[in-house]
């Protein structure tokens, strides 16, 4: 047909988008390049003795066990919840949805803090019920803390897929003689696979990169090993190798996900509007059972951290610790705000390239932009330590370096909303304004900017909130005297000062709550 974007009418991208976009793509490659450079400094014998030893195997085993454990537990929690809130007539589905998404506001290390705070002689359980149990740690503790924090990612993916499945797919399967059970296994489940995989990818990458929860649970995985290597016995070459191994694991997870997804292409074909599936009605008993399950999940993932926090907060007056908390808050803000602005500014040309000037170059740049997201944060931060020590000495332990690292690490987050907004601002809208007498510049002011403003601000807010609670990168790149909320919480918890850590945990939860609020509002708009 006569669409506006046929192959023939493709225009070349103007330099003001191309050059910054290429620079962003290259900036993403620099850290990896530098890690490789450091890692290959040593001769082969040294490397072999560092890398090929039983400890590496143990770390690999532990990392795999943790990823597998979290994926299984988080899916077991998320899948029934997604089905209940989208495909049944359960009363109070909307409330259940909010309850189930809210744990996103409780980062893994806060969840770990809560689990630890529950236990012990001075802990919540003993004080309230006279019930002491040992401090959770190791694989079980880390799996619990991370699953309770990450399951909403899988839930949200499954929910979106379940909500979008075309009823005519399932109905035609029924018409072809399949029982409801067969329909579930042969139609619904295969349809959900891509959503499940992308949920697993997000959670898998998070678990591989997580540092706070595993460190507090003292579970030896690669990120923990990298941290101790950096903090105590600083061996650059071994640290670089650990970082590269982590990156390799992350890349292989991404590779597997894309391999699995290749065979699963389930976009609707054909025209006509899709039909929403009908809801299964739940009678009283299953409804009660469903709510029991929802309550159990909410109690564990929300009630637990909130009540433990309330317990420790009430243990000591708040006022004296307020000035320190405010300073800490200010430290976090002073880095998060410029990071958000920079990430937004860097993401804009990349998004414009992707949406308006699709080409092999722009898709390559857009892939590179995800490096910051995919590379485990400790490895990413270590690369920046090397770079600054290597040939940008004044940047070492500076605010600027932390801001740059954040903006690159979270660029992908800002990219999503900006790209979505640009898709909304179709080229025909700009042409319509031109034909109504507006010059190119006033088209930008009157049409393009109002349309993408929301997306740009949305992307920046995401980066801001994530940066506010970020731990591992801050840990390695913290400027001297920089005590963000996350760093203070982490160091106090790891020293066993649970009372002193509580206000910081509360501040982080409130802030992360904002993030969840953004997600929920965004979702509500699309419902």
């Amino acid at each position, binding site marked *: 047909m*006569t669409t506006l974007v046929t192959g*023939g*009418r493709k225009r070349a991208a103007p330099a003001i988008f191309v050059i910054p976009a290429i620079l962003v793509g290259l900036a993403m490659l620099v850290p990896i390049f530098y890690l490789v450079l450091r890692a290959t400094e040593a001769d082969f014998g040294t490397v072999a003795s560092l890398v090929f030893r039983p400890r590496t195997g143990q770390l690999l085993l532990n990392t795999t066990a943790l990823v597998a454990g979290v994926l299984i537990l988080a899916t077991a929690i998320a899948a029934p919840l997604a089905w209940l809130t989208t495909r049944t007539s359960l009363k109070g589905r909307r409330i259940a949805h909010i309850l189930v998404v809210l744990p996103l506001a409780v980062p893994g290390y806060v969840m770990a803090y809560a689990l630890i705070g529950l236990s012990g002689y001075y802990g919540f359980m003993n004080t309230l019920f006279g019930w002491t149990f040992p401090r959770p740690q190791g694989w079980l503790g880390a799996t619990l803390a991370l699953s309770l924090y990450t399951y909403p990612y899988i839930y949200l993916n499954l929910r979106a897929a379940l909500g979008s499945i075309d009823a005519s797919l399932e109905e035609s399967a029924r018409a072809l003689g399949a029982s409801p059970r067969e329909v579930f296994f042969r139609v619904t489940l295969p349809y959900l696979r891509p959503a499940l995989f992308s949920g697993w990818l997000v959670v898998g990458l998070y678990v591989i990169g997580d540092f706070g929860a595993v460190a507090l649970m003292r579970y030896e995985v690669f990120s923990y090993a990298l941290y101790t290597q950096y903090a105590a016995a600083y061996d650059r070459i071994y640290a670089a190798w650990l970082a590269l191994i982590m990156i390799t694991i992350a890349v292989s997870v991404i590779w597997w996900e894309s391999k699995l997804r290749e065979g699963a292409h389930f976009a609707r074909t054909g025209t006509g509007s899709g039909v929403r599936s009908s809801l299964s009605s739940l009678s009283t008993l299953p409804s009660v059972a469903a709510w029991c399950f929802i309550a159990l999940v909410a109690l564990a993932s929300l009630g637990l951290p909130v009540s433990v926090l309330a317990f420790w907060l009430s243990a000591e007056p708040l006022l004296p610790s307020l000035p320190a908390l405010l300073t800490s808050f200010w430290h976090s803000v002073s880095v998060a705000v410029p990071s958000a602005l920079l990430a937004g500014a860097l993401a804009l040309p990349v998004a414009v390239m992707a949406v308006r000037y699709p080409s092999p170059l722009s898709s390559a740049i857009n892939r590179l932009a995800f490096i910051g997201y995919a590379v485990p944060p400790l490895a990413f931060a270590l690369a920046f330590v090397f770079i600054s020590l290597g040939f940008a000495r004044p940047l070492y332990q500076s605010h600027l370096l932390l801001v740059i690292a954040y903006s690159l690490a979270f660029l992908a987050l800002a990219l999503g909303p900006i790209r979505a907004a640009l898709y909304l601002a179709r080229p025909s809208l700009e*042409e319509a304004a*031109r034909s109504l*007498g507006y010059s190119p510049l006033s088209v930008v002011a009157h*049409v393009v900017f109002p349309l993408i403003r929301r997306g740009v601000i949305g992307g920046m807010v995401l980066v801001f909130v994530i940066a506010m609670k970020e731990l591992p990168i801050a840990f390695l790149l913290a400027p001297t005297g920089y005590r963000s909320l996350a760093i203070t919480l982490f160091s106090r918890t790891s020293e066993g000062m649970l009372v002193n850590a509580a206000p910081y945990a509360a501040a982080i939860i409130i802030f992360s709550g904002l993030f969840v609020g953004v997600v929920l509002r965004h979702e509500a708009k699309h419902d």
Partner: protein
Amino acid sequence: MTETADIDRSSGPLLAARDLVRHFPSARGAAVAGVSFEVMPGELIALLGPSGCGKTTTLRLTGGFERPDAGTISLNGRDVTNLPPEKRGIGFVFQDYALFPHLSVAANVAFGLRHASAADQRKRTAQMLEMVGLADLAERMPHQLSGGQQQRVALARTLAPAPPLVLLDEPFSNLDAALRVETRQEVRRLLKQAGSAAILVTHDQEEALALADRIAVMHAGRILQMSTPDDVYRRPADEFVARFIGRSNIVPACANGFLAQTDFGDLAIDRTMYGNVRLAVKPEQFVLTPAEDGNGVVIGREFRGHDQLYWVRVGGTEIMAIAATNSLLTIGTPVRLTTSEPVALFEQAVAENS
């Protein structure tokens, strides 16, 4: 059907395109390969052709969204070839309507009126919305409107600054079939009422025939014929036009003055000609008479309500012919095939009185 009284032919053409050429780097051949046409004030032109024929590119060249590699465009005698779209004062209605999603219906309509005073803007906007019958939806947002309403808002927005010329890119393709027929007469009425000339791009011949004062049939980057709907339909300039507009029977023949010899007898032709020609006979130009000694036999039929379409084998060829339903012919009936009027012809023959 075609009211041509409102086309002003006293002065020169409103728009004149001369030898427009446009190449796209990634495509083989030119998208537009030497297109010339004129539009009179108040005239409604349809650019008709299959997809990829260059009709949309011609429209975008006229609107200023593309620049020609060669050729000129003048508006009211002024060369506008290198003017950007905003300096041309030509209205454009997009296939997807391109309503600004962040602005209300009223703000969309007022968008092109920013140089007018606030009071004038309000007055003109109200007047335009009144004209398209959407006065009570002024404060709605575009996504709250149906497809047909969105299109009327797009038209009101385009017509608000009173452009002398409006370009419409497949304006009905996003509407469902029932709404399309209704809307196109509405659009024709609105354009005539506003006194704007218009160029409409479409691949739907029925739409072009119903809407336009003149039709330009395009193929492979060129205009093959530009004439009134009646002319284009009855006297196609070549075989492509004949096949594209309505169903035509292409019959090889040997012309000899006012008659042309075919496999199934002599047919009257619409001008004198000698030598080998091809005739373009519309199905309804044939007359079918059941006759035992007829020259053809019915081999298929399609019931169409008020009439029937028959396939008739005559000699070695299959002919489509339309006959009224009162003469129901069964398959196998022998028939005589004649024509009711002189038929159109074309191709390598020497015209006597050209």
